[in-house]
């Protein structure tokens, strides 16, 4: 999100954007590593090193905050997926329910007049 926000801020307003991570910071050129396999641990160490360049003091938990390029699902980032689904259901139900009660209140008021 931060990256998108900075990109939206044009040079015209604030000059050059601050340093930010882009694809090639992690992947290099034409040597994109596999996300599964025996070198997973090695990849996490490299990722931590990359994260630490902007977030000094980051622990080995920190890279797990990155959801890779996948949308959360029951198999990938299940906690994020369940939270997302909870609010996806709760938000419209709550708001529609409240609007329904408001409309009923108005309707009753005019019926009583």
């Amino acid at each position, binding site marked *: 999100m931060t990256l998108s926000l900075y990109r939206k801020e044009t040079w015209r307003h604030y000059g050059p954007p601050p340093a930010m991570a882009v694809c090639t910071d992690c992947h290099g050129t034409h040597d994109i590593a596999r996300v599964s396999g025996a070198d997973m641990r090695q990849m996490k160490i490299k990722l931590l090193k990359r994260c630490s360049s902007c977030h000094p003091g980051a622990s080995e938990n920190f890279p797990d905050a990155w959801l890779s390029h996948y949308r959360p699902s029951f198999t990938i980032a299940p906690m994020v997926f369940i939270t997302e689904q909870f609010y996806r259901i709760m938000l419209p139900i709550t708001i529609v329910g*409240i609007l329904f009660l408001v409309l*009923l209140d108005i309707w009753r008021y005019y019926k009583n007049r």
Partner: protein
Amino acid sequence: MEYTDQSNRDEQIRRFGIYRIIEHLALIALFMVLSVTGLPQKFYYLGISQSVIVILGGIDNLRLFHHLAGVLFAVLAMQNIIANFVGVAFLRWEPSMLVTLKDAQDAFQNVRYYLGLDDRPAQCGRYTYKEKCIYWLVIIGGFQMIISGFVLWFPVTATQFLPGMFIPVSKMVHTSEAMLIFLLVVTWHIYDSVLSPDVFPLNKSIFTGIIHRKQMKQLHPLEMEEKSETETVLPSARHGHTMAEDHKRTRQ
């Protein structure tokens, strides 16, 4: 309906003390700052969000304002919890904001009334089930946002103790809970205290501290019944009073 007739001033009742008035004003101010600085971050791709970000001096400035308002909101929420706990535990305040079985019954009765299945609306006490619902939503949702907000503000520190996955979860909770509270406030609370035919154009009691007797009877009939004549008539409200007097005079 509005009660502004000068001859009816003696029919006014003190409902809130200066402490609650200031607390509510602070909450309104912080709610507006948090909304204005938070929504453009969630909907950053909209043109109006970009305009707000530019007006406030860029995304870094916007986040600075958001963080400052968030810290002040945390302080406000904490003092509310502590003050109410101390008041109820040691100063004999009535725990009138606690949710009871009667609130569920009131909500159910009001739905029946709206549908024409009952001939009178719910008879509420000091706080209606709607007011309690908004209050607890702001308190519980507010604490969720405070915790998730600090996780997002200090991700490196947070991941010293928590799994990294808590960062995207916090982001999800923070923005979704904010949307829930924002939408509930602008629909239910604004309707209930501004647009509802019962109070239109505005229920001023939380800003002035006083309410007209007729309106009190209509909105909080059970509380009205409990108040004695000598305790409730306005004179003290006209001549000013201390916060301690407010606490004695009005239940929290």
